[in-house]
Each structure stands twice: as C-alpha cells, then as structure tokens.
C-alpha cells in the first residue's frame, strides 16, 4: 500500500528532493547527478527501477561528446570572451554614441543596438549582461540619464541577445527540442521533427517584434520625457572620422549581417560562421596588439571553464531526465498536465509560468535543461507546434533574467551599479520592459503563426 503510493509519486518525490538539495548551494550539475543516482538505487532496491538502465549513462555522455550541433557552443563563448576582454565593443558603442548621442534617447537606443550586435556570443550564465552593463550603464548615467530608464535599458539590451539566432541558448534549446520530439507521436499519428534552423527562423519574427517594442519604448520616453534620456552636448561626444565609422561600425555590422544571412540561407553551418568570426576577430585584435599571447592564454582558459560549466549542466540534466523518465515521472507529468483546463494552451501556460517561477532559483540554461525534457514531450503530444513552443519558451526564460529579485540581469546590475542607483530604481526600471515581454508573449499566444509562418514558408508544409 505505502509502497504503491511511493511508486506512484516517485517522480514528484525526486523533483522535491532535488529542489531541497539545490538550496544547500552544492553545484547544480552535481546535485542533478547525485539525486538521480540516489533515486535510481533506491528505486532498484524497492523494485521500481531496473538498475540496468544506468549503463545508458556512459552512452549519453558519449552522445554529448559526439554531438556536432554543440561544437558551436565553445566557439561562440570564445567570441564572447574576446569581445569582453578587448576594446572592440567599447569602440562600437562610442561610435554609435557619436552618431546618435546628439539626440534625446540616442545613447539608450545605441545600447539596445549594441546588445543586438553582440547577440550571437551571449547566453552563457549571463556573460553579455555583464559586457553590455559594464559598457553602457556608466556612459548613460554620465550623460544624465534617468537611473530607472537606464537600468531598464541595460536589462533588455543585455538579455535580448540570448534569443537572437544563432544564440547559444537557441542552439541548446533546439537540441533538447529535437530530443523531446524524437519519441513523441503527434495526434493523428504523424511523427514530429524539428531542427535548429527551423527554430532560428521561427524566433526571427518574434524577436524583431520584441526589438521594435524596446526601441519604441526608448523613443517614446525620449519624446514624452526628454529629461529622462537627454542628448549629449556636442563637445562631450566622441569625435568621429569617416574611417572610424567604417572600421568600428560598418565593418562589424556587415560581417555580422553576412554571417547571419549565410547561416539562415544554409550556405554556412552555424559553427563555420562562428569559427570564421572567431578567426577574423583573433587576427584583427592580435594585429592591433590588444590580444597578446598571454591574454590569449587567459582567454582560452576562460573559454574552457565557461564551456565546461555548460556541458557539466548538460551531463547533470541528462542523468536526471534519464532516471526520471524510466521511473515513470513522465507519465506523472503527462497526467498532471492533462488535468489542466484549456488543453494544450492551459498546459503550456502552466509550464511557462513554472519556468518563470524557477528563475528565482535557477539560471536560464538550467531551467532549459530540466524543464524542456520533462515537459515538452507532453506538450508536443497534445499537439503543440515545436517551433511555437520553443520560441515561447525562449522568450519566457529571457524574461526570467529580468524578474526581481533574483533574475540574473537584476542581480548583476545591483552588483555593478553605483550606489546612487537603488534596488527600487532597478525594479521600477525593468517593470515597463517586463510588460513588453508579457505583451509579446500574449501576442504569440494568440497568433502562433508569428513564429510558425517563416519556417513553414521556407521549409514548406509541416514545420
């Protein structure tokens, strides 16, 4: 009797144990691994679990090592670390400030654009929020920007990149969606498949809407309350020469545009575009003597640490979901989600709300790696479009970065912002941006074709 009850709720017990153990502060990845192994051993002692399944572990790790989609992750991290450690992005921002800073709101808009330009390199444990925050916040405050407005802009500029294709978050999300879709049969009996390009194309339009909404917000503030984002007086603006505009703005823009176009049109694999970018930037910064051998050594070591953190989390998550699914946790999740009124839409809403709630505890990447494998098979089975689900999920975890009190962007801002920027300023500053996030999500919710139209148009038929 008790054993039966235990068996039925084993999955939930496993999740609850995980949450409790996570709060001790032991590394998340290792806690995932240990909880899974502990429950597998307990389950096999009680006869719920065939310990044989654990031999799949080494094969799962091998699969991770041999997955060629994931090759791009360290390469993008490399690009991001170099941008963080050289003055290229400072120069980019200064050039834009020189061009647009003369108008009210110009610097704020430049910051958002910078976030878009640095996008492909972002998404790992908030590294961009860091780069962009360190660059843009001081210059906006020095220009006399309202503290709340400036904090909000930093948060959205720093986090938008996490979901602009081909970001690291989208790469990993696609991998997880592909796995989730693999063993699901859609209503009607057809199999589901989804790949990175489809999800990238699907994200394009919603991200554009999000970006336009941010820009409209910055412009609106500039028009209605110009004192919140004043123009920089001309003697304080950096002087621009034609050559400088070309070298530090037009060239990088062109390069990024070209790379994105070649990825989306299928001319280059994502990883090739990333590697070309990495080689170009390495040679260029070495040529400018900004990147010495010593700094290159520091860079590769930092890349190794950051990539390893990402892959350790994947190892932990794959262990956890393996055991969870074999324990029948999947069936429990499916049963729970099926009881939600509203069918697919209700269940999706619950999953997104839950993911947003998890932002109080976990990072975007961790949420992705735990929530997607556990819930997406069910949502796909209810007939959800994989591209639509992936894009909604991506925007949700991006919003999670900005959720007070412990979203990464918020924490980061609080740690670097000068004392005059209070916590309350930051909270009030992100509030309008969170409203934008919710609006865009609602729009996507009501009109799924915003996400699904483009991949369908390119790939034809069922996306």
């Amino acid at each position, binding site marked *: 009797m008790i054993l039966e009850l235990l068996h039925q709720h084993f999955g939930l017990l496993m999740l609850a144990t995980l949450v409790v*153990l*996570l*709060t*001790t*502060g*032991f*590394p*998340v*990845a*290792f*806690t995932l*691994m*240990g*909880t*899974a*192994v*502990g429950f597998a*051993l307990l389950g096999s002692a009680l006869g719920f679990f065939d310990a044989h399944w*654990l031999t799949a*572990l*080494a*094969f799962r*790790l*091998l699969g991770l*090592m*041999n997955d*060629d989609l*994931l*090759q791009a992750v*360290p*390469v993008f991290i*490399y690009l991001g670390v170099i941008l963080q450690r050289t003055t290229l992005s400072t120069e980019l921002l200064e050039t834009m400030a020189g061009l647009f800073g003369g108008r009210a709101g110009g610097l704020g808009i430049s910051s958002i654009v910078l976030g878009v330009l640095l996008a492909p390199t972002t998404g790992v*444990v908030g590294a961009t929020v860091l780069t962009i925050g360190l660059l843009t916040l001081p210059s906006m405050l020095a220009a006399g920007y309202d503290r709340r407005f400036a904090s909000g802009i930093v948060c959205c500029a720093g986090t938008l990149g996490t979901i602009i294709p081909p970001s690291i978050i989208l790469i990993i999300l696609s991998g997880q969606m592909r796995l989730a879709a693999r063993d699901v049969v859609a209503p009607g009996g057809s199999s589901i498949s989804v790949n990175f390009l489809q999800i990238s194309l699907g994200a394009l339009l919603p991200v554009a809407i999000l970006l336009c909404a941010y820009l409209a917000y910055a412009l609106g503030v500039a028009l209605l309350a110009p004192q919140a984002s004043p123009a920089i007086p001309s003697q304080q603006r950096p002087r621009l020469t034609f050559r400088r505009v070309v070298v530090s703005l037009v060239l990088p823009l062109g390069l990024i545009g070209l790379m994105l176009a070649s990825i989306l049109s299928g001319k*280059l*694999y994502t*990883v*090739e575009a*990333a*590697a*070309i970018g*990495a*080689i170009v930037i*390495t040679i260029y910064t070495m040529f400018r003597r900004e990147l010495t051998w010593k700094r290159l*050594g520091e860079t*590769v*070591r930092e*890349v*190794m*640490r*950051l*990539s*390893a*953190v990402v*892959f*350790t989390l994947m*190892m932990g998550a794959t*262990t956890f979901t393996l055991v969870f699914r074999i324990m029948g946790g999947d069936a429990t999740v499916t049963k729970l989600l099926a009881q939600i009124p509203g069918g697919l839409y209700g269940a999706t809403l619950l999953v997104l709300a839950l993911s947003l709630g998890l932002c109080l*505890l976990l*990072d975007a990447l*961790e949420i992705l790696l735990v929530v997607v494998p556990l819930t997406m098979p069910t949502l796909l089975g209810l007939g959800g479009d994989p591209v639509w689900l992936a894009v909604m999920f991506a925007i949700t975890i991006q919003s999670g970065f900005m959720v007070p009190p412990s979203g990464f962007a918020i924490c980061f801002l609080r740690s670097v912002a000068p004392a005059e920027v209070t916590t309350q300023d930051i909270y009030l500053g992100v509030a309008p941006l969170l409203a934008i996030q919710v609006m865009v999500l609602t729009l996507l919710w009501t009109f799924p074709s915003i996400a699904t139209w483009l991949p369908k148009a390119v790939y034809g038929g069922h996306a």
Partner: protein
Amino acid sequence: MKELERNRETVTAPQAMDPGSMLLDALDRLANAIEAVVDRIGRVMAWLVLVEVFLLFVQNPLREYVGRGQFFANDMGQLSHAAVFMIGVAYAWRWDRQVRVDLFYRSMGPRTKAVVNLLGTVFLLLPWLALVTWDAVPTVIESVQIVERFPETGSPGFFVLKSLLLAFAATMSLQAAAVIARSIVVIRDPSRSRA
C-alpha cells in the same frame, strides 16, 4: 566569538608539533598539490580551444574549394571540442566556477560551506562518477583494442574520443579528492579557509 577564535589561533600556531594540526597541514598540502596538477592539465588542454576553432574554420574552405578533408577536419574538431569540455569540468570546479544556487550558500560561514562541499562530493558526485567509470571502462577497452574509427565518416581516432571518458573520470576523482581534503581541513579549523 571572534575574539575566542583568534585566541585559539595564536595558541595553536606555535605548537606546530601537535599531531592534529600536523595532519591538517598534510591534508592542506595534499589539496594544494592535487589542485596544482588539475590546474596544469587544464592550462595545457585549454589551448585545444584554438585547435577546435581553427579546424572548424578550415572545414568550409576544404568543402567548397578542395573537395576533401572536410570530414576529417570536423571529426578532429569534435575531438578537441570534447577534450576541452571533458577536461574542463574538473578545471572549472577547481576554480569554483560550477554554478550553485547561492540563495543561502552566499551567506554561509566557511565551515558550513565546507560541510556542504564535503557531503555533496561524497554522496552526490562520487556515486555518479563511480557509475560512469564502471560503465565506461569496458566500452573504452573494447574501443581501444579495435582502434575504433568515427562511425559515420571513418576518420581515425574515435577511440580517443571514447577514452576521454576515463580522462574525465581521472581528473574528476583528483579534484574530488582535493575538495574532500580541503573541506576536512576547513571543518576542523575554519581559520584555514582561503575564501
């Protein structure tokens, strides 16, 4: 409290001959030595990041203009990529970069942190690591014996990729030993915490 602790410190420091303290010294040195090894391995292997970037960079011109070698470049890129993150796990841990939920951890004292790390390593990480190693050994031995090639392309060196599982297990065991030793030292004598 602080006063008391400081007093104890001044009392114990000159008595280096005290056996308990000598044991802690030895453990401390052991942890340092192991971490130095993990660090050395990490520093060398980190350069594979550049190798990976370069190989993935040449893959496109090879495919477009040479017409061969692109698969070999990609497979070797995959190998460097896997080596970077498999060795990197212990290296990142050595620098305490593995992400934690720091809701409570942030405000814990050095001794409580050491207890978390000690118990976590012994009861959460090591059982998993043992399982993976147990699974991996026969697979790796078999693969090395037949000098296995990449299944899809036939490039040589797949057995090296598989062997990384054991390199991973080895570096992780080393770092786990360092964490255990360091945690014991700090639990017995929180003043030795480096944080």
